[in-house]
């Protein structure tokens, strides 16, 4: 150990190092996801192949039986009116009358059990989550190493300092950028919201989403607050997903603001 009085600077350096590590640890505990790779350029194209989404169902599921098959009540017969039994010129009706046959045969299928093949990908979200966890851990480690290295270099100290100063000056510009992308995202999703499915009241919904720097949604949107109308919730969720890739800033620092979003909907308001 270093004796406190002997090496003032060393002590301070040590304290600083501990402080920085502590800060970082705290930050990572509150889940800051950094990608050390530079963000890709965001093209307005569906990059479905790169998305860690559920793969299409591979195996041919047994096709389910309908809950009630089609026993049709026999087609109505056009009767002759009592007082005037003229032969009506209704050949069409006569022909269609003769569909009584299916009745006896149709009785059988009713017994078949009802089975809908639920899509397979139930385990997949879990796998996906694990993959994400892994990534997070890796980033964390990388970052910690990078920062540890920075600690010991004076040059990098001044770099950081410069960036910090610049950060203060640009905070207003950042706010402007954030507002711009917020508006872009809001408008793009709004275009796809189908409020016809949301009844006549004033429902409010809230979804939470996680974005990749490409603007794609990670996994599925999470419903925090529903409208009370299932079709409305589903429609809004579809609107979010259909709006991919969402417009997000390319700058990684700004993008970090958009990584986790809360989307608040009032589909029947406005207009």
């Amino acid at each position, binding site marked *: 150990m270093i004796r406190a009085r002997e090496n003032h600077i060393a002590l301070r350096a040590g304290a*600083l190092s501990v402080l920085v590590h502590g800060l970082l640890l705290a930050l990572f505990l509150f889940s800051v996801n950094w990608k050390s790779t530079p963000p890709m350029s965001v093209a307005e194209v569906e990059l479905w192949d790169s998305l860690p989404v559920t793969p299409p169902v591979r195996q041919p599921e047994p096709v389910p039986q309908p809950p009630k098959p089609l026993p049709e009540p026999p087609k109505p017969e056009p009767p002759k009116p009592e007082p005037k039994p003229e032969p009506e010129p209704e050949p069409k009706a006569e022909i269609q009358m003769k569909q009584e*046959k299916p009745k006896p045969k149709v009785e059988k299928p009713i017994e078949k059990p009802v089975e809908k093949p639920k899509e397979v*990908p139930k385990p997949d979200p879990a796998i996906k989550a694990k993959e994400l966890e892994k990534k997070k851990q890796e980033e964390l480690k990388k970052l910690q190493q990078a920062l540890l290295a920075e600690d010991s270099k004076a040059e990098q100290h001044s770099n950081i300092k410069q960036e910090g100063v610049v950060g203060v000056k640009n905070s207003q510009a950042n706010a402007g950028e954030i507002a711009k992308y917020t508006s872009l995202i809001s408008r793009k999703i*709004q275009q796809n919201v189908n409020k016809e499915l949301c009844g006549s009241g004033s429902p409010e919904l809230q979804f939470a989403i996680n974005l990749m720097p490409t603007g794609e949604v990670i996994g599925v949107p999470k419903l925090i607050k529903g409208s009370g109308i299932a079709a409305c919730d589903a429609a809004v969720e579809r609107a979010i997903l259909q709006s991919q890739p969402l417009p997000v800033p390319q700058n990684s*620092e700004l993008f970090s603001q958009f990584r986790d979003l809360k989307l608040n909907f009032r589909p029947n308001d406005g207009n």
Partner: protein
Amino acid sequence: MTILRTLVSIFVLLMPLAGKAELNIEIVGGAATQIPIAIVPFSQPTNVPALAQQDSIASIIGADLRRSGMFRVLETRGVANQPHDIAEVKYAEWAAIQAQGLTVGSIESLPGNRLKVSFRLLDVLKQNQLAGLEYTITPAQLRTTAHKIADVIYQKMTGEMGVFATRIAYISKANKRYSLQVADADGYNPQTVVSSNEPIISPSWSPDGTKLAYVSFEKKKPVIYVQSLVSGQRYVLANFKGNNSAPSWSPDGKKLAIVLTYGANSQIYTINADGTGLQSLTKSSTIDTEPVWSSDAVSIYFTSDRGGSPQIYRVASSGGDAKRVTFEGSYIVSPRLSADGKSLAYIRQDQGKFRVAIQDIATGQVQILSDTSQDEAPSFAPNGRMILYATTINGKGTLAAVSADGRVKQRLSESGGDVREPAWGPAAN
């Protein structure tokens, strides 16, 4: 000092990341009005003539969904890969054309001239299945099956009951002959229930969809008949002195409300479905007519001019004082109630034009729905979303439909005679 500054700088740099609150984004309103859906033509056997002679199942489903106004049915021909089952689906291709829903299916031959129809409804964005069903049918049942599939799709995506597999009744007048007809909700497959040289009016479906009550002038005066759509048999429900008209079934199908004149003015009665047990409901010296039951059977709404001009009133089905419910408009007739009991539709005269209007029963708010001008006989779809009615276009009686919010408007084209007096049948049980 350097270290202090460094510290501060780091703080500043990291501050936006430290304890960062999630960004909240507000999205108000919604511009989309239709659900984009793709319906891939079903695969089908080529050696079944009955299939070749009919519209394809995908086209019937597409026409149904399109007609509802709730869907935008996308063109699928441009997509190279045409799947017929879930394993063949490449979701990216369908997402690329902005589809949210995708229907794939197949028709296979079975022995005994039967067919197996299978389909799946898929969520393109979440890449999962919303519905999958299989039917065993005869070729003659293809249209009905297509309508049932359209119902499933409609229900899964809108949350509302579909009505594509329902039927409508109406009267067609051609060459001085009147026919009461029943057709599919899309107008196909009309069949004559009864026809006559004298007018037929006011068809009314029994709640179970097996009978129609109607008014016929074949005895040179208006008489109410009840006819079974299953057997074709009919009987006279009411032929009292004077006029017998405006039959309306109670929700349990055991009674009807009717209008008699006994040679004096029109008044409302109830009568058992077998013609017994006539009971008086209204007693006034004016016109009381067009009774309709509420779905909970508690009330009967009707038209009355006891206030000087025709308006809509409500009375308890067990009898009592009637209460006026319409206050906007000087001439209002033909009350109809939605199945959920929340809306009242009627015909209202405005500056000489007779239009379909809808009133919110709770709030009293009124909206004029139709843009045609000689409207009569509104009839709610069983899901309350569309209102079918009769109008005159270019001098010819035509059926039209308007959505309960006025957004979707349709004309039902009909070759042949003047069409009038539509009645939308109940949902299939």
